[in-house]
């Protein structure tokens, strides 16, 4: 039986192996990081386009029919992408870094998908009216906002 000799080289190797394995463990502990980042990106893109129409409604910039129509089309496009794919089971607040999604979302997925369908309906209304005039754009924006809030109210953990 040969005794294991701890040489500096072996020690370094062990340290590297330990580092690799723990970093691997970290990656394994949060398998939802990509999904959470993706859904946040989708939300930010939607907020950016809603903000363009919102600035017109608030009177910060002049109403621009073409720009409003383009922003509305983007909102509808992004809304159509959102699905349970970016909300995999387990990617809830406390279990995945940066997640604010409440566990209730996966307890009642049909309700979540229903609210998502409402968002797409509202987005379609926005697309239909955003380029018409400011008042129609404002009404469509209001509908989308209600759909956003309905889901956030039920399934998003408030900050602070």
């Amino acid at each position, binding site marked *: 039986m040969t005794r294991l000799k701890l040489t500096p080289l072996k020690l370094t190797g062990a340290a590297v192996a330990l580092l690799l394995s723990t970093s691997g463990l970290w990656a394994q502990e949060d398998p939802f990081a990509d999904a959470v980042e993706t859904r946040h990106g989708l*939300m930010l893109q*939607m*907020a*950016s386009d*809603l*903000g363009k129409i*919102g600035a017109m*409604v*608030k*009177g*910060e910039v002049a109403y621009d029919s073409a720009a409003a129509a383009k922003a509305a089309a983007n909102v509808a496009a992004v809304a159509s992408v959102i699905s349970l794919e970016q909300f995999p089971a387990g990617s809830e607040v406390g279990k995945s870094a940066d997640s604010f999604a409440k566990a209730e979302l996966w307890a009642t997925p049909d309700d979540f998908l229903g609210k998502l369908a409402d968002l797409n309906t509202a987005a379609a209304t926005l697309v239909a009216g955003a380029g018409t005039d400011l008042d129609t754009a404002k009404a469509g*924006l*209001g509908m989308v*906002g*209600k759909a*956003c*809030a309905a889901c*956030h*109210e*039920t399934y*998003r953990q*408030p900050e*602070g």
Partner: protein
Amino acid sequence: MGRFFRRLLALGIFAAAAGWFLTAPTLRDTQAAEALTPDPVHGETIFWASGCASCHAAAGAKGEDAKLLSGGQKFATAFGTFLAPNISPSKEGIGDWTTAQFIHAVQDGVLPDGSHEYPAMPYVAYAKMSDQDIVDLKAFIDGLPPSDVASLPHDVGFPFNIRRSLGGWKLLFGNPAYVLTGTMTPEVERGRYIAEAMAHCGECHTPRNALGGLDTAKWLGGGVIDGTAKVPNVTPGGLDWSEADILNYLTTGATPDFDFVGGAMAHVVDNMGHLPESDVRALVAYLKAVPPVSP
């Protein structure tokens, strides 16, 4: 020695009598209000402006569902958990109440049986409402669907479960005077009526002291609800949004970043949707006029 204890006893009895006297419910004169002709259509605007459904309807109720005032929502506080009672026009609710009883409950914080209400009900704010608005509100609620759901008791521990002690609370913190005073434009004055008398913004947005009284020196400077949830400072010292931003938020629920928030404020946004835009603009003007509280 005997004389000393007799004096102490006399003093004790006097203090108890004075305490009993001071904590007795005080009721306002309702004659003028009872003589008015109620307008239930205007009462609906008062109903939404005052946020009745946000607490007295089922949790998360929207639209027509929010008009069924069956109660049952729970409010966790440092003093215990309060359960919103049924205030629908039924036997279990307030269907049998006279106009005077309604006014005392809403504006004096005194129930028909003569007991004090807990200040979870914002009667200190409602105390400032006009007689006409109050009778209009009652007329609107009287026309809503009845609910037979029994009101549940509050879950409050000693000593807060002694309702008489609320008389002392009212002496300390029940001053219904407006917080914003001085000269102001008619628009700010209208906003003050909406914010301080009806919408009771201060109940959540103003910090409370150890006894649950509002710290009016830090009016709208930010508070805490449900034990831990932080409510933001909405004075010019804490909120740097433009008037257009605040108006947009109160009418659509969108922050300047176009995030749409949930929580209790989502109810407020829904409620504000029932008000004429001039009223929401007045509220914005008021928020810009309140003294800034540093963060």
